[in-house]
C-alpha cells in the first residue's frame, strides 16, 4: 500500500479522563488533609495552604516578606542549621505568596519523609523572624526593585494592576524602595500569627506514597500549634478600576510592553466554559488568532497571548505582549481589529473544534502528573466543585457552539471598559 501523507491519520475523541477523585481526612484543628497517590516515582509534595495572600496585607510586601522569612530560623535552629538539615534529607520547602492565599510546599522523597517533615512543620510553626536576617533580605529586595524598574514588562504588569485593582488596594499598590525600607519585624510577626498560625486552611498531599505517610503527616500537624482559619471579617477593600488608555515611559526603548485587559466572568458564571474557549481561540494557545496574526503573519512579536484568570477578588482577562517598538501602533490597532472581529463575526466550526480538542488534550495532560494534579485539586477545594465536575466540564466543552460563543463574545469582549497599558 502506498503511504498517503496528505491525509491526517484518524483522530479519536478523548475516551477517559485519568481523574481519580481525591480523598480527605479531618485533622484535629478542623482543617482537612486532601490526598491523592499516583505516578511512578517515590516523591512527595505536601502543601499547606494559608489565608496569607497579598490581598491580606496592610503594607506592601508584608505578605511576601513574611513568607521569605520562614526559613530564617526557629526557636530551636538557626536558618542555616534548618536548611542544612533539610538538605541532608534531600528535601526543600518554599513558601509562596499568591493574591488570595499563600502555600508552604515541602518536596521530598518518601524514604526521607521522617527526617524532613518535622523540620518543615517546625519552620512553619516556630519561626522567629530574626532582625539580622530581615536586614539582609530587605537590602537584597531593594536591589531587586532597582532591577525590576529597568524592565518594561515589570512596569507594565504593576501599572496594569494599579489600574485594575486601584492604587490603594493591596493588589494594586506599587512597590518601592521606600516601602521595603519601612518594613518592620513586628508587622511580619503580626501577619505570621494571624495569617499563618491561625490562618491554616487545608493541606494537599500528592506524589506516590503509602497510607502510613498520610497518618504521619496528620499526626504531626495535629500536634502542631496550627489553628484553622476562621472567616475573618476584615473590612477588605473593594477594587476600583480606572478604565482607558495609559501610556507610560519605558526604561528600555528597544521594545514596547503592552497589556490590554478587562474584567471577565466568574467561575460560577453560566458562560464560564464558553468564555474559556473564547479566550483560547482569541489568544490562549499557539494556534490562537493573536498568535497567527501578530506573530505568524506580521512578525511583530516573539509571543503574544491572552489569559483568563478567574479569581476570588477579580476575574481578569488580559492580552499581553512585547512588541517591536516601531510597530507598536500597528500591533495595538491589529489587536483591536481582532477583538472587533471575534465579537461581530461567527467563529467557524473548524476553529471551535481545534480549540476544543486542544483544551481536552491539555486537561488530560494536567491530570497526568501526580504533582500537577495538586493544582487541579486546589481549584476543586477552593471553588467547592463536585466530584463529577470534570466529567460534566468535558461535556460542557463539547456542547459549546458558534452561537453560544458569539453571545459571550458580544457580552464580555466588547471594547468598552478596557484597560490598556503601553510602556514604550
Amino acid at each position, binding site marked *: 500500500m502506498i*503511504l498517503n*501523507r496528505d491525509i*491526517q*491519520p484518524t*483522530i*479519536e475523541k*478523548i*475516551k477517559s*479522563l*485519568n481523574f481519580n477523585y481525591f480523598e480527605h481526612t479531618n485533622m484535629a484543628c478542623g482543617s482537612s488533609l486532601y490526598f491523592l497517590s*499516583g505516578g511512578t*516515582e*517515590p*516523591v512527595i509534595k505536601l502543601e499547606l495552604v494559608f489565608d496569607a495572600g497579598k490581598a491580606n496585607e496592610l503594607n506592601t510586601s508584608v505578605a511576601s516578606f513574611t513568607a521569605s522569612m520562614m526559613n530564617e530560623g526557629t526557636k530551636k535552629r538557626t*536558618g*542555616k542549621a534548618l*536548611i542544612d538539615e533539610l*538538605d*541532608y*534529607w*534531600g*528535601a*526543600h520547602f518554599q513558601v509562596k505568596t499568591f493574591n488570595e492565599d499563600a502555600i508552604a510546599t515541602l*518536596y521530598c*522523597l518518601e524514604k526521607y519523609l521522617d527526617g524532613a517533615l518535622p523540620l518543615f512543620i517546625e519552620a512553619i510553626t516556630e519561626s522567629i523572624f530574626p532582625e539580622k*536576617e530581615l536586614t539582609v533580605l530587605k537590602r*537584597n529586595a531593594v*536591589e*531587586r526593585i*532597582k*532591577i525590576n524598574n*529597568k*524592565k518594561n514588562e515589570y512596569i507594565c504588569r504593576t501599572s496594569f494592576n494599579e489600574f485594575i485593582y486601584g492604587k490603594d488596594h493591596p493588589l494594586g499598590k506599587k512597590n518601592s524602595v521606600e516601602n521595603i525600607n519601612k518594613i518592620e519585624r513586628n508587622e511580619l510577626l503580626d501577619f505570621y500569627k494571624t495569617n499563618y498560625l491561625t490562618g491554616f486552611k487545608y493541606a494537599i498531599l500528592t506524589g506516590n506514597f503509602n497510607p502510613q505517610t498520610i497518618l504521619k503527616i496528620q499526626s504531626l500537624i495535629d500536634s502542631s500549634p496550627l489553628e484553622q482559619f476562621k472567616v475573618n471579617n476584615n473590612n477588605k477593600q473593594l477594587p476600583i478600576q480606572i478604565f482607558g488608555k495609559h501610556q507610560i515611559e519605558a*526604561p*528600555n526603548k*528597544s*521594545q514596547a510592553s503592552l497589556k490590554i485587559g478587562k474584567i471577565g466572568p466568574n467561575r460560577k458564571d453560566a458562560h464560564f466554559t464558553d468564555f474559556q474557549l473564547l479566550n483560547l481561540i482569541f489568544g490562549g494557545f*499557539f*494556534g490562537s488568532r493573536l498568535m497567527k496574526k501578530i*506573530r*505568524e503573519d*506580521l*512578525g511583530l*512579536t*516573539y509571543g503574544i497571548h491572552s489569559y483568563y484568570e478567574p479569581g476570588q477578588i477579580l476575574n481578569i482577562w488580559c492580552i499581553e505582549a*512585547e512588541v*517591536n517598538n516601531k510597530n507598536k501602533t500597528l500591533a495595538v490597532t491589529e489587536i483591536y481589529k481582532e477583538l472587533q472581529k471575534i465579537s461581530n463575526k461567527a467563529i467557524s466550526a473548524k476553529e471551535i473544534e*481545534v*480549540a476544543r*480538542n*486542544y483544551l*481536552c*488534550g*491539555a486537561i*488530560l*495532560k494536567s*491530570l*497526568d502528573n*501526580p*504533582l500537577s494534579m495538586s493544582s487541579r485539586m486546589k481549584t476543586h477545594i477552593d471553588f467547592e466543585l463536585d466530584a463529577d465536575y470534570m466529567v460534566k466540564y468535558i461535556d460542557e466543552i463539547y456542547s459549546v457552539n458558534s452561537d453560544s460563543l458569539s453571545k459571550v463574545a458580544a457580552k464580555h469582549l466588547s471594547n468598552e471598559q478596557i484597560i490598556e497599558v503601553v510602556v514604550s
Partner: protein
Amino acid sequence: MIEFTKFILGNGLTVIHHEDKSTELCVLNLLYKVGSKNEEAHKTGFAHLFEHLMFGGSIHIPNYDEPLQLAGGENNAFTSNDITNYYLSLPANNIETGFWLESDRMLGLAINPKSLRVQKGVVIEEFKERYLNQPYGDIWLKLLPLAYKKHPYKWPTIGKAIAHIKNANQADVNDFFRQNYAPNNCILVVAGNINLEKTKELCNKWFLPIPSQNILSNPLPQEPVQRKLRRKTVLADVPANLIVMGFHMDQRQSKNFYAMDLLSDIMGSGKGSILYQELIKKKNLFSEIDAYITADAEPGLFIVEGRMLPNTTFEMAEEAIWMVLNHIKTKNIDENDLKRAQHKNETSIRFGDINPLNRAMKLAYAEYLGDVDLVNKEIDNYLAIHTDDITTESKKVFKESNCSILSYKIKKDDSK
C-alpha cells in the same frame, strides 16, 4: 529505573521506546544532532532560526500546529549549543498524528519567502526581548567570546548579532536542512502508553521510507588551553555592578563534570550555600550571588556570578570570590556539605522523572551523549564523588590563567 528498548531503522534513525502504562498520553521527542556549535562563524543563530522554520509547514502538510491541536496535542522545541530538540505530547490513542507530522517535516520543508521573512522578524524580536531588553540580558553575548577563542561555543544560540539573522536567505535554509535534518542525524524517543510492537509498526510506516543523507561531520575546532587571565568591562544602564567569572572545566562524561556540578550546588544553590553565607550574610558584599555550570556536551564553563551592593568595588568583589575559591582548593569541603548536595541531587532527578516527557528528553540526550544507560546511572555517578575529587579538580579549574572576568559596570550619566 527507566526501562527502554533501543533499535535502529534501516535509514539510520535511532529509536528509543519507553512504555509507561500509568499515563493516558504518548510523547514523541526528536533530537536532531545540530546546534549552534555547528554553525559557520558568519552565519550564527541559524540552528535556532531553523527551529522556528520547522513550524512553517512541510511537503504534504501546510500547517504543522493545527492538525496537532485538532488531535488534542501540544508541542514545542528548543535549540542549544549542541542540539535542536522537538517534542510533542498527544492523548495516546491519537499518537499517529504525531508520527505523521514529524516524519513529514523530516522528509522535507515547504519554506516560502513569506514564512522566512516573518520568522526572521519573530526571532529578531526574541533576540531583543531576551537579550537586549533586559538589564544584564547580553551577558552571554559578552562573556562567551571572552572565554572561547576557537571553539564555536564562542557565540550564543541566539547568534552573535541581529544582522546574521537578517541576512539569512532561502539558499542557506535549503542547505542547512539537507546537511542536518535526516533520519541518520536524529534520535527519536517514543514514550508513554504505547507498546513496543505499535511503536515499531508506526516507525516503519512513517519514518522508514525517508532516505538517509550524507551527513558531513566536520570536526569542531578545539579550544586551546587558556594561558592567562582575560578581562572585559561593559558599561551599561544597569542599577548595580555585576561580576561574572567563567572557568573552563572538563567535558560532560568525565567524573570531573559530576564533581564540579556538585560543587556548584554547594557553593551557589540557596541560602545554605557557601557563597550566600560568606559573601551576602557575613561580608555584606553582594545582593545576589550564584555558582553554576553551563553543562554543555563538550567542555563547558563553571560560572560564578554576583550582583554587588552599592558600596562594593570590583576589587573587593573579586578578592572575596577568590578567597572562597582558594579555600576550596586548599581544604577539602565538609563531608556533610557533599552529602547534602548528593541527596538534593537525587531528589531533583526523581522529581524530574515524574512525567513521561521529561523521561523522553533525558533518554534522547543520554543517547546523544553516547550512552543511553546514563539515565539510570546519573544518581550513582553523583554518589561516587568524594571530597578529594572536588579538591583535586578545583585546583585545576580555579586558576587565574583559566579565568575570564566580565565586569558589568553602571554607566554614570554625566548630565545629572
